[in-house]
């Protein structure tokens, strides 16, 4: 008696000559084997004849439509990915312009400012201490970072997250 694996090899056409001869012999002489072989053969033929399923009629069109959408997304992505560079570019240009302007202004002018003797200035001078200036600078820096996070980093990374998901 051949094993199941050997019977499937016979059906798949990959059995050795010896195996095929044994199969033929068993088929001719053993009713039990013949019945069992026919059972497996029926399954094999059924599997071979399984129908090919067909998707909906709009299958191809749906994909092509999505590809157009993808192009749109890509276009949007390329703009937003440059947002950071645009921001840094503008900031660097402004900084450079200010430095140039400051140098030109310092070397070309000589200005003396006389503070008027006003009691109002005496009140404001209380706040113009070294500590106050440092705190103000830190507060400004934090505000700048918050704005940068909200306007640049957050939109950039949320878009990136959508694209990856």
């Amino acid at each position: 008696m051949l094993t199941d694996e050997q019977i499937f090899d016979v059906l798949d056409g990959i059995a050795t000559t010896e195996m095929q001869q044994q199969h033929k012999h068993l088929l001719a002489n053993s009713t039990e084997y013949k019945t069992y072989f026919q059972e497996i053969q029926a399954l094999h033929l059924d599997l071979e004849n399984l129908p090919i399923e067909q998707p909906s009629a709009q299958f191809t069109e749906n994909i092509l439509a999505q590809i157009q959408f993808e192009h749109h997304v890509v276009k949007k992505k390329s703009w937003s990915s440059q947002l950071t560079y645009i921001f840094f570019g503008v900031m660097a240009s402004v900084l450079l312009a200010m430095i140039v302007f400051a140098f030109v202004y310092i070397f070309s002018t000589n200005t003396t400012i006389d503070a008027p003797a006003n009691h109002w200035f005496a009140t404001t001078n209380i706040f113009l201490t070294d500590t106050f200036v440092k705190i103000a600078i830190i507060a400004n820096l934090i505000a700048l970072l918050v704005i940068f996070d909200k306007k640049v980093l957050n939109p950039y990374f949320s878009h990136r997250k959508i694209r990856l998901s």
Partner: protein
Amino acid sequence: MNDNQKDITLLNRIRTGDKLAYKELINRHKDYAFTVAYRILNSREDAEEIAQDAFMQVFGALNSFNGEAKFTTWFYRIVFNAALMQKRKKRIFAADIETSSEAFLVSHSSDSTESLRKHERQKAIQQALQNLSADDTMMLTLFYLKEQSLEEIAEITQISAETAKVKIHRARKRLAEEMKRKLKEEVRSLL
């Protein structure tokens, strides 16, 4: 020009922006992609979604396909992985056997007895396939559907050809057992 060469030609045309080539490629493989996904997922909607996603992935990863393997091998691996992931995600269960059998008998009442019997057997096999693991179903589908070689199946499922052969054999055995179990259940319900 053989099938794979045709696919490669189409892929090259797609790379140059030829949309018609992409359409042709989809039409060439959509039925098989859908069938593979459907056999694993047992849901037409999910299978269609997975097959569509697979084609989208092909479009997105055109440059990563170097043409060393057959296009279908690469493509079916995408379909197989996507369907497997979807199956794990959604845990789809097989449809009720009795309902579908009744629906079939109603819709095919005019068929001859022989074609009815054949159709019933096919239906039973499809249902038995749905009760097998996704791995077993995939093995049998690839082996019988497009007559992929053991080497190709091995490449798609990322195992060795020898393991693929053993797996196919085991899957067939499990299918036969599942069919017998179903038959026994039907006989028991008749008695």
